[in-house]
């Protein structure tokens, strides 16, 4: 029993070793050696993850804590460097290492034009990312999670700025890091709050002692954790870094900015679901923010022409769905959507990468078109992913999205209406993207057309695997209405989810109705988009309301003028005025005053005998006065020498 769970530390260790080898020996490794090491370590982690999963899945499994050493031990608290193997962490292990491996494999081909040292640097960063993500997932307390949390932020920074010669990319990288840090501030405050109130950050102990916390404490802690989640998972108001993060190489967008890192916020909230279930206020905030983000990002995606930007906003929007699920208490639904989304969004990004690669780094969909003829595998897999994300049965996205929408309906019908509307928008912009890219005729240069080709197998194999998962992934969570008691995921996660989740009160008729409406709206949106954009794509710049959407509601400009510029101005003001003139001015004034006094007093020594005699007389008078009346000063002298 549990023979593999105790080896769980090997799972993050493999990628760490990969990082060290690729990083330190980057100048001497050949590209194929780098690729084999870089992907091999992730595969090793994946294999071990599967073995552990099989153990966890077996009946009667109890969570395993593997304690490596005491990380920080002071009088008031101890923070252990320990890992926790349970249903939730195992599920994420599979997603991170499984999809991670596919994307590493894909990268061996996608990044092949890089020089060997940079190729190794890329794989080193990717390995380091997987290592950090595994720490985040496996940590048995909030501090270990935070180590991974900031670690993935770092790797994201390094990979967005991978092509560091381009200054725009560097700015995007820094923006991502800083916005994540804003969220991290919330996370840290929550950790300090737990330490101050409970003296522990260990999951088991925190959840066991949750009853000793006041409602205010719980609300504050959950809200602060949510600030962290909003930063990492790109929710309002901290979402603007994610679309800019598309500056990184496409496999990075697939792995970090779609499938894994950005779901860390969902992982954290599900992990803390016992706290969240006791904080209805926070839940309402989470649901509202999630829904608003889903809608806002979907509206922006409609008018984007960069293939990766469309997918980026779609990611933001889908993450919003997941937060909606968390907010209405559908934790399993949110996890389910994380999983299916990881399949189809990784697939979409890798497909986009395949396209970008084929047309020599062109990302503007207006210069594409008709690609289905040239790239059959990319085309079919991309189409399947589009169907999955649009929520068309029986593809995976349908099941997970439906679960969240049903929970939203039970909670508040307005949530459901906006959710379905957003689902319609999703289907619309995804098929606008699909039709503009793959249907119609090719609109690029003849030279580009000449070179169009299907990608090599290191690229198409991951596409095919992910396509299969996108198609069948939904069967892990078949709703009650189709087949009773067949929601595998719900059973699997049930030991970890607070038991306050409302039982499914919806009648079967209502549930069929809800599904029918959302699928119907999605189908109509697909039909409109397909017919409209496969013939005549949107070539001209948007005007009017469309321009507002194309410019992302001008949120970046708003942040810039309300936050970034004032901070810079304040810094300049402090630097040029306060520091130089006020504070240092004061210091210098004291110095000058003493110098001035010195100059003046010097004049007393004038060399004129008359003056000296005058001073002598005055001093004598003063002495006589002191002798006769000096006792009046005694209190002062006493006070000094007391």
């Amino acid at each position, binding site marked *: 029993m549990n023979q593999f769970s105790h080896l769980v530390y090997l799972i993050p260790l493999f990628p760490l070793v990969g990082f060290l080898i690729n990083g330190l020996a980057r100048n001497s490794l050949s590209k194929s050696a780098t690729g084999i090491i870089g992907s091999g370590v992730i595969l090793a982690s994946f294999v071990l993850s599967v073995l552990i999963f099989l153990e966890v899945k077996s009946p009667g499994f109890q969570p395993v804590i593997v304690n490596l050493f005491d990380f920080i031990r002071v009088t008031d*608290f101890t923070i252990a460097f320990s890992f926790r193997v349970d249903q939730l962490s195992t599920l994420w292990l599979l997603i991170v290492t499984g999809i991670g491996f596919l994307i590493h494999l894909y990268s061996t081909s996608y990044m092949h034009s890089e020089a060997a040292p940079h190729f190794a640097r890329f794989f080193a960063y990717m390995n380091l990312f997987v290592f950090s993500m595994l720490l985040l997932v496996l940590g048995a307390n909030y501090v270990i999670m935070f180590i991974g949390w900031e670690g993935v932020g770092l790797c994201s920074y390094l990979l967005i*700025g991978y092509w560091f*010669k381009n200054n725009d990319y560097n700015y995007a990288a*820094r923006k991502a890091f800083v916005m994540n840090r804003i969220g991290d501030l919330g996370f840290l405050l929550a950790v*300090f709050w737990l330490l101050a109130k409970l003296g522990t950050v260990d999951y088991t102990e925190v959840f066991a002692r949750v009853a000793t916390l006041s409602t205010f404490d719980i609300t504050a802690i959950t809200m602060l954790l949510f600030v962290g989640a909003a930063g990492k998972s790109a929710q309002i108001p901290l979402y603007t870094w994610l679309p800019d993060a598309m500056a990184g190489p496409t496999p990075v967008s697939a792995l970090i900015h779609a499938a894994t890192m950005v779901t860390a916020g969902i992982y954290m909230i599900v992990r803390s679901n016992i706290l969240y279930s006791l904080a209805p206020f926070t839940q309402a905030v989470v649901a509202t923010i999630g829904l608003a983000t889903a809608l806002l990002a979907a509206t922006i995606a409609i008018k984007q022409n960069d293939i990766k930007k469309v997918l980026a906003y779609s990611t933001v929007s889908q993450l919003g769905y997941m937060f909606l699920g968390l907010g209405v208490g559908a934790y399993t639904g949110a996890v389910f959507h994380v999983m299916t989304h990881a399949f189809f969004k990784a697939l979409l990004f890798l497909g986009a990468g395949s396209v970008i690669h084929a047309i020599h780094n062109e990302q503007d969909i207006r210069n594409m078109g008709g690609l289905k003829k040239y790239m059959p595998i990319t085309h079919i897999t991309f189409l399947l992913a589009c169907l999955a994300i649009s929520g068309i049965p029986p593809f995976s996205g349908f099941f997970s999205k439906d679960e969240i929408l049903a929970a939203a309906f039970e909670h508040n019908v307005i949530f459901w209406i906006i959710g379905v509307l957003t689902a319609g928008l999703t289907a619309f912009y995804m098929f606008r993207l699909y039709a503009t890219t793959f249907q119609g005729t090719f609109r690029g240069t003849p030279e580009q057309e000449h070179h169009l080709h299907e990608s090599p197998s290191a690229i198409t194999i991951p596409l095919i695997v992910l396509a299969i998962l996108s198609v069948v992934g939904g069967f892990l969570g078949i709703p009650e209405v189709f087949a009773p008691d067949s929601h595998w995921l719900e059973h699997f996660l049930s030991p970890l989810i607070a038991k306050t989740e409302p039982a499914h009160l919806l009648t079967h008729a209502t549930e069929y109705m809800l599904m029918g409406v959302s699928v119907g709206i999605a189908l109509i949106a697909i039909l409109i988009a397909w017919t409209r954009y496969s013939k005549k794509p949107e070539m001209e710049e948007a005007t009017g309301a469309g321009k507002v959407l194309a410019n992302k509601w001008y949120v970046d400009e708003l942040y810039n003028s309300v936050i970034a510029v004032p901070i810079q101005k304040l810094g300049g003001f402090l630097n040029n005025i306060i520091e130089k003139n006020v504070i240092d001015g004061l*210091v*210098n004034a004291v110095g000058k005053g003493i110098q001035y006094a010195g100059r003046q007093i010097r004049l007393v020594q004038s060399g004129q005998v008359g003056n000296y005699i005058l001073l002598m007389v005055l001093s004598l008078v003063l002495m006589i006065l002191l002798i006769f009346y000096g006792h009046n000063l005694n209190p002062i002298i006493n006070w000094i020498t007391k």
Partner: protein
Amino acid sequence: MIPVLLILIPLLSGFITFFLKNERTVKSWALLSSIATLIVSLFSLGMLQGNNQLTYDTQWLPLLGSRFTVSLDGMGKMITLLTAISFPVIFAATYKNTYSKPASFYALMLLSQAGLMGVFCAADLLLFYFFWELALIPVYFLSSIWGGERRIPVTFKFFIYTFVGSLFMLLGIIYVYYQTPGHSLAMSQIYNLTFPDGRENYLFGLFFIAFAIKMPIFPFHTWQPDTYEQAPTAVTMVLSAVMVKMGVFAVIRWLLPMFPDASHSMSHLVILLAVIGMLYASLIAIKQDDMKRLIAYSSIAHIGLMGAAMFTSDAAAMQGVMFQMFAHGINVLGLWITADVIEKQTGTRKFSELGGLAQKSPTLAILFVTMALANIALPLTNAFIGEFLMFSGLFKYNVWLAAIALISIILAAVYTLWMVQKIFYGDAKDSNLPVVILPNGTRLMLMILVVVILVFGVFPQPMINLTTDTVTKLIAQIK
């Protein structure tokens, strides 16, 4: 005997250095001397508290009731270790630098090390004051003889400013002297003093000004950026890696145990100033175009956190301060070494003129980025441990102050990554700078520092344990 050796080795070898002729001899001699000190310091780590090798006591100024008492507790071991590490690292990393009158330069460097060691070992208040001034004088000469263009006015201001602070402390010392029963200045006697009502606050003020200027705590910091900028970088390293810790150290060693009530009642004001200073310095750092000035302001922000944390009376925060003294010393040393190499080889330290160095000097880039990450206290670097503990204590002290102070970690990311971006990223063609080649000694030192950063970031416990005795005793004294 250990503390005496820590003072004597640099003191004697420093005096000998004045008479050495050849530049190579001088450099090797200084390096050798500093390594000998380091070995002695490493020896002290293995010794248990109470070992009589860790204390030494002899007659010094019987007329004044002052004795030459030196001793090492956990904090003493930690900070002398930092001092002992810093000097050989500085000597090795700047081995290729040339100075006019090298004998005097290295002699004064060693003398300042002797002064610093004395400050950290002294268990007698007058002895402490003696070394406090002794450490300052060589640094004054080093900066005003070998410094940059504006060295004369800048160093003069630095000297006067810190000296005025010291005079306030001297006043306090004289007063304290008259309060002790047997007119003694021994630490054991002073710790047990109680002062008449209201008097403690004034005394606190006299000592605090001296220490606050040294650290520096806002608004007493304006000497620092100019001095760091104008001093030769080797001296700047001494100043910011070790000397500013004198202020932090002195607060913990003397101020808090001597005036526990005043420390408690003044803590609101001090912490508020420190937190304001953190944000203030961080905001100014964002606007710097000079690498040395940016590091200077960043350092003020980091010291500000220590200043706030040590007045919280929280054990975890105090452990954090101890840890961070060491960590900050190591990290800032690394930053200055890189700044020095870059300035020496490209001829500039302005961000507007730098750029693209990562392309041709990837090793330097990797080392610098790691140190930059430590500067923003990323987990698994040493600074995270210290800052985490300090913030956790500050949070217990006051939630809002902690939240405001935490904004500085965002600003730290802004300016530190800005610095990385401006120096290393971008296309090398745009800036047209020569390739920066790391001399072997410099590279080795930077690598050692990076290893130290990571090792203590992952396994901080030995360093935490080292200073636990001091913290436990201190908390008992001030509670």
